[in-house]
């Protein structure tokens, strides 16, 4: 199958998958290092760790993808904002998506109302950064997001297997 990012795959270490795997493993290592210092196995610790791992997975995936995609940008911005609340990081304002696109958002009539919310709205909630996209871009972002999610799932599963053996 043709590589989608052919230009980057010529050097093997620059595929999205490899970048994600590296970043995620580093993050896991950092989290586990903290875990070793505090050896409590309480559920709260586990829960906290779980959240950190989840955020790490998302952020490392977004970093691997880069800023090319709206959803990865949204994830990275969200992370920066969260950091900014805790620290002194300033979030650089993204340029406003032209509001004229809002017209297209509502112009795409929902053929079905699912649980009272439009399907497009549901999709927008699922895909990070999808709130302000028109339908066409939303679908494109969804396609890329699905791709990256499958990679993420596979890599994480592999890591889990290896770590649990």
């Amino acid at each position, binding site marked *: *199958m043709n590589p989608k990012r052919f230009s980057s795959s010529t050097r093997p*270490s620059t595929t999205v998958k490899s970048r994600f795997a590296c970043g995620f493993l580093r993050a896991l290592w950092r*989290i586990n290092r903290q875990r070793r210092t505090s050896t409590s196995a309480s559920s709260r610790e586990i829960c906290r760790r779980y959240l950190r791992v989840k955020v790490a997975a998302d952020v490392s995936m977004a970093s691997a993808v880069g800023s090319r995609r709206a959803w990865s940008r949204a994830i990275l911005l969200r992370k920066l904002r969260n950091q900014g609340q805790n620290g002194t990081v300033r979030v650089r304002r993204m340029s406003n998506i032209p509001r004229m696109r809002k017209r297209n958002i509502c*112009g795409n009539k929902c053929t079905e109302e699912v649980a009272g919310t439009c399907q497009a709205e549901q999709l927008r909630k699922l895909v990070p950064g999808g709130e302000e996209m028109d339908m066409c871009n939303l679908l494109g972002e969804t396609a890329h997001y699905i*791709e990256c999610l499958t990679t993420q*799932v596979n*890599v*994480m599963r592999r890591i*889990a297997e*290896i770590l649990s053996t």
Partner: protein
Amino acid sequence: MDGHENEGILQCPSLQCPSSGMSTNPLPEKVSGMIMNSVSMYKHSNGADPFFSSGWDPLVSLSHNENFGGSSMVSHREFASTPYPIVLENQGISGTSHLVQYPSSSTFVELVPKLPCLGSGSFSDMVNSFGLPECSQIANSECPQNYASSKEGGTGRTSTNGALSQDDRQISAEGAVGSSPNAKRRKRVSDYNNSPVSPRQNAEGEMEKDLSGQSSDVQKEPDEKKPKTEQNPGSNFRGKQTGKQGKNASSADGFKENYIHVRARRGQATNSHSLAERVRREKISERMRLLQELVPGCNKITGKAVMLDEIINYVQSLQQQVEFLSMKLATVNPEQNVDIEQILSKDIINSRRGTGAILGFVPGTSSSHRFHRGTFQGTLPSISSTTSKYPLLPQTVLDNELHGLFQVGFDSCPAVDNLGSNGHFKPEL
């Protein structure tokens, strides 16, 4: 329409002698008239008998095509075997006024046997090209471009359009070739405006698609479409190709600029808003098709709503899988050996992953030394628990692929950045 007629024509390629040919073939009058005209014109310029023997077949096929009323557009692949999809209007073939626009120097001229429209100068070129075997191979991509480039002047088109509108039936073949078989009357003289955008898409047959009632409206299109830099006229050319007969008053629009050239299809509004709407819809349907390939099990789903539901479910299930896996990773005991991380990274990247749901992750170049060394240790357990209705991306048995990676002793722990430089066995699915 007249199959027997066509047979007659085809079987009598010795229709070389127009007089004799005409007498024997029950051609419609205008066709015969057309042929007569062409032949007579040819005689003026050339007058060589071999022309007929060698080059008449395309003309025959032209008339053949004409008999079908231009109903069959042949794809450019079949170009060699099928007649030129020249559609000649039954109303008659007008004079030579069209051919004035005809570029005499381009190969397009050679390809397009516009019989009735033969300009004196161009006819010989066309005639000479008939005998050429390359005629059939001349990609239509060339012709539309040539033609379009000749029309770059553009301004004259609107004026000629008026003249052409009645004579519109004259179709130049280059755009016609390769279009879908449903083309009725292709009066797309001005269809070539699309050709600079995408000759390939031309070949896919926009011929019949685009009619605009008023050329003026279509003229406005470039302005309307200006914000759209994406060139995708082909998207307009998919879809309904109903066998509608009738005039396709095509409007001229041969600007080669950065906006989408949209053509109003027959029976559709030519309002700029509706055109933009149609472009938007085409884009959306294209994306939906892409998504259909990504989401497993959606090949048979037709319908946007159902498709969207599937997509939403799939994204939700993937996100749930990520959450589940992160929970699992949070609970797993950390390994003491740090080097394992690096080994893992190599392993993870090089291991073969799941189903075809993953696209385009090609592993790095293979280095055989790691492939042969080392042994694979253990088999991989499979994760079986998931709450989503989608099956987990199946684990493949990796022993045959990982034996190069897992080594008994971690003799070398290359840096994480050197990932992927190790061997990879097979490309990702």
